[in-house]
C-alpha cells in the first residue's frame, strides 16, 4: 500500500506540533547536534525528508535513534521548528510500522521494555529493567557479550546501594496506569484510522 506523502507529513506535524515547511535547511541543528558526526542523516536531512514526503525513509534512518533528545536543535532553530519533536514523531512512526533501522532494534526493544516496566509497576524497577532488557537483547541478536557488557557497571552499583533488588515504595493504584496506557494506545489508533477514512 503506497501512502499519501501529504498524510504522512500531516501525521508528523501533528505529533510534533510544528510546521516542517518553516525549515529553510540552514543546518544549524546539525551544527549543534552532539551526535551529528555519527549520524547517517543529520537533523537537517531528516527534516528535508519529511518536507519532501519521504517520511518513511526518514523514520527508517539510524539517526532517529542516535538522537539523545538534548534539544539543542530546537533551542537554536532560527525558524522555531521543533526538530527534536519531529525526531520523536519519526521514532513513533518507525515503531508503529516496524521499520526501525536494524542496528537500533535493540534500542526500540529497550524503550518498549521500559514502558512495559512502567505499565506494570507505575515506576521503573531498574534491576528488572536491566535484566529484562539484556534478555530481550540477547534473544534479538544472540550475543552473550552484549548481554554482559554492562554487568561490569552493575556490580559496583550494587555495592554503592545504587541498584536495588527491590524497588522503592510501590505504586498502589497500578490499574490506573494500565488504563492510561491503553487509552493512549487506543486514541492513537483511532486517530490514524480516522485519517485513513
Amino acid at each position, binding site marked *: 500500500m503506497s501512502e499519501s506523502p501529504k498524510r504522512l507529513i500531516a501525521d508528523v506535524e501533528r505529533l510534533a506540533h510544528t510546521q516542517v515547511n518553516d525549515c*529553510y*535547511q*540552514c543546518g*544549524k541543528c546539525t*551544527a549543534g547536534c552532539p551526535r551529528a558526526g555519527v549520524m547517517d542523516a543529520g537533523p537537517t536531512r531528516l527534516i528535508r525528508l519529511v518536507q519532501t514526503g519521504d517520511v518513511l525513509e526518514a523514520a527508517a534512518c539510524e539517526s532517529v535513534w542516535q538522537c539523545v533528545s538534548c534539544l539543542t536543535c530546537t533551542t537554536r532553530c*532560527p*525558524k522555531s521548528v521543533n526538530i527534536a519533536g519531529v525526531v520523536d514523531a519519526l521514532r513513533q512512526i518507525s515503531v508503529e510500522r516496524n521499520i526501525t533501522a536494524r542496528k537500533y532494534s535493540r534500542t526500540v526493544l529497550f524503550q518498549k521494555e521500559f514502558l512495559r516496566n512502567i505499565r506494570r509497576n507505575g515506576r521503573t524497577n531498574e534491576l528488572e529493567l536491566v535484566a529484562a532488557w539484556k534478555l530481550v537483547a540477547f534473544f534479538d541478536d544472540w550475543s552473550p557479550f552484549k548481554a554482559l557488557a554492562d554487568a561490569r557497571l552493575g556490580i559496583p552499583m550494587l555495592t554503592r546501594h545504587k541498584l536495588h533488588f527491590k524497588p522503592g515504595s510501590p505504586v498502589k493504584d497500578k490499574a490506573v496506569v494500565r488504563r492510561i496506557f491503553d487509552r493512549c494506545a487506543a486514541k492513537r489508533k483511532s486517530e490514524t484510522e480516522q485519517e485513513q477514512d
Partner: protein
Amino acid sequence: MAKIGVFTCWCGENIARHVDVERVAKAIESLPGVHCSMNYKYMCSEPGQSLIIDQIKSLGLTGVVVASCSPHMHLKTFRAAAAQAGVNPYMVEMANIREQCSWVHADKEEATAKAIELIRIAVEKLRHNRPLQPISVPITKKALVIGGGVAGIQAALDIAAAGHEVILVEKEPSVGGKMAGLSETFPTLDCSQCILTPRMVEVNQHPKIRLMTYSEVEKVEGYIGNFSVTIRQKARYVDVNKCTGCGTCWNGCPNKRIPNAFDFNLGNRTAIYIPFPQAVPARPVIDSTRCIHFKNGKCGICEKNCAAGAINFNDEDKLVTEEVGAVVVATGYQLYSIGKEQTNPNISGYGEYGYGKYKDVIDSLQFERLISASGPTGGEPKRPSDGRIPQKIVFIQCVGSRDNAKGVSYCSKICCMYTAKHTMLYKHKVHDGEAHVFYMDIRSGGKKYDEFVRRAIEQDGALYHRGRVSKITEEEIDGVRKLIVRGADTLTGKPVTVEADMVVLACAMTPTDGATALAQKLSVGYDEYGFLSESHPKLRPVETNSAGVFLCGACQGPKDIPESVAQASAAAAKVLVMFSQDQLTREPEIAHVDESLCAACCACVQACPYEAIAIEEVLDRRGNLVKYTSRVNPGLCMGCGTCVAVCPSKSIDLEGFTEEEVYAEIESLL
C-alpha cells in the same frame, strides 16, 4: 436638478461575459436623476471617452457615472474626460462592476443583479455630490535633508545643484555616515573614503548648503511646502567659526583612552576629538561626559593651547527654527545588536556566539575598521584580544537576518556581498590565511556582483560552507586563544568544526535608533522593524504618505551604496518637481468644518493623525471673541475622515465622502 449620465462598459468580454450589460443599462434608465444610460465596448478608449463628452455636451449632463473597472484604474481618466466637457471632475463616480463583480461571480443572473445595485449606489452618491475645486498652497523652495551619510549628501548636492537652498542636518560631529568608516567597496574594491570625502567637502563648501552637524531635528510643524522645523544644535564647546581645525587641542588632550564610537570601540580617541582624520567639518567637539574639565573644573589644556580662542566650556544646546518646503529623510541604518541586551522584546540576541564575551568575535562594521587604512590598526587585521594577525577567520552570514526566532525575518541584502569582499581583503593582506564563510544562500543579484563572489571563491580561495553555525566557544590551544566554531555543511550533511583566530558576524541591518521617533514627528509610517514606509513599493518608492516628505537610503530598507545614491537622487528629483511650481495643487477631498455648528469640543483635534486641526477664535467685526471653533489646515489634511467619525455634532465633514453622500449610498441599498 441633477442630470446624470450612466455609461456602462463591456470591457470587451471581461464584463459582458458575466453581466448582461444591455439589461443593466435598461434597468438604470429609470433611476431618479438619470438622464441617459448607455453602454459601450470599451469606455476608456478614445471613442468611449468621446461618447461621454458628446453626451455631456448634447444633453447638458451635470454628472457622470461610469460603470466599468476599479476607480483605482480609471477614475482619473474619466474625471479628465468630464472636465474636458465642462463638468466638474468631482461630479464623476464609478461603479466597479469588473474587479468586484463580473470577475468574481460566475452566475450571470447574480452578477447582473449586483451590477445594477452597484450602479445604483454610485448614482445615489453622485446625486448628493457637490463640485469641488483643487486647493492651492504656497511653497517655500528650501529643503531639509536629515542624515549626512552618502544618501543625504547626494540628495543635498542634487537639490543644491538645481539652485535651491538646502539644510543638511547630521547628528554626529561629522558627515559621512557609515560609508566613511568602510574600507573598500564591492564590487570594484575602490576605497570608500577616496570616493566619499570629496563629496563630504563639497557639501561643506557649497554656497547653497547649510551644514548643521552635531544637530538633531527636534520638532516639525506645518505641511507640504510650508514646514517649520526646529533643530537642536548640541553644545560642541568649540566655536566652529573661530576654530581652524589645527589639531593642537586633540593632540594635547591628556584624556586619550576613550573608546571611539566611530571605530566601534576598537580604537581610542581623546575627550576633545574629531571622530576620524578626514572629518567634515574638521572641527572638534568636547565629550562633556568624559572631559576632565567638566568633572572637576581643572585641566583646560585645550583652552590654554587654542590660539584661536575657540574653546567655550560654557556652550549650550541651541534651538534653531527653519522654514522649509520639503523634507528628505536619510537616517540610514545600524547593525542589529547581537548580545544579550536588547531594546526590542522580540529580539533575543545570539548568546551562543559569545559576542561581547569573546573579544575576537566581532561584527562586520568592526571588521571594516580593522582592515581600513584609516582604521585603528592602520589596515592590519590585528585581532582585538592580543593584536595577533589571525591565520584563520570565520565569517558568519545571516546573523539576526532571516531569523524569526531571535532576530528579524528579512534578508539584509548586502551581507553576502560584503562578506565576499571581507574574505578578499583579508586574503590580500594575509596570503596564507584561511577565510571560512558560513552562508545559507548567496544573494548576489546586481551588475558584476555574482562575478565578484565567484572571484572570492575561485581566485582568492575563500572556503564557503553552506550552513549556519550553532555555537562558538573559546579555548586555549598550544598557548593561543582559539575560537571553536561549530557549524555544518548541509551539502555534505556533516558538521564542520573550525578552530579560528577570529570570527566576523555579518549582522542584520536595522534602522538607526531614533528613526521611528523622527518618523512620528514627520507623520511618516514605518514597519514592525522601524523601516520607514514609502508611499507605494513600486510606483512611489521615495514618497511617503506625508505629503512633502521623501525617503532615501537604508532608513527605508536594507540597501547598498549604489542603491542608496540612486534613491537619493530620485528623492531630490521629487523635491525639484515640487519646487518647479510656484503653488502646490492638492486634491480637494479633505475635511472642512461648519463653524456655526462646531462646539470646539476638540474630539477631532485629538483624533487627527496629522495635527491638521486646531482650535481657533471666531471674532466679530469689531474684533470681539464670539466663540471658539475647530479649523482644518488644508495644507496638512490628508483626507482620512477620522475627524468625521469622532465629531459628536457632525459639524466636521469630509469632501468627497460627506455624511450625506455616504448615507445616500447606504440608503440606496434599502
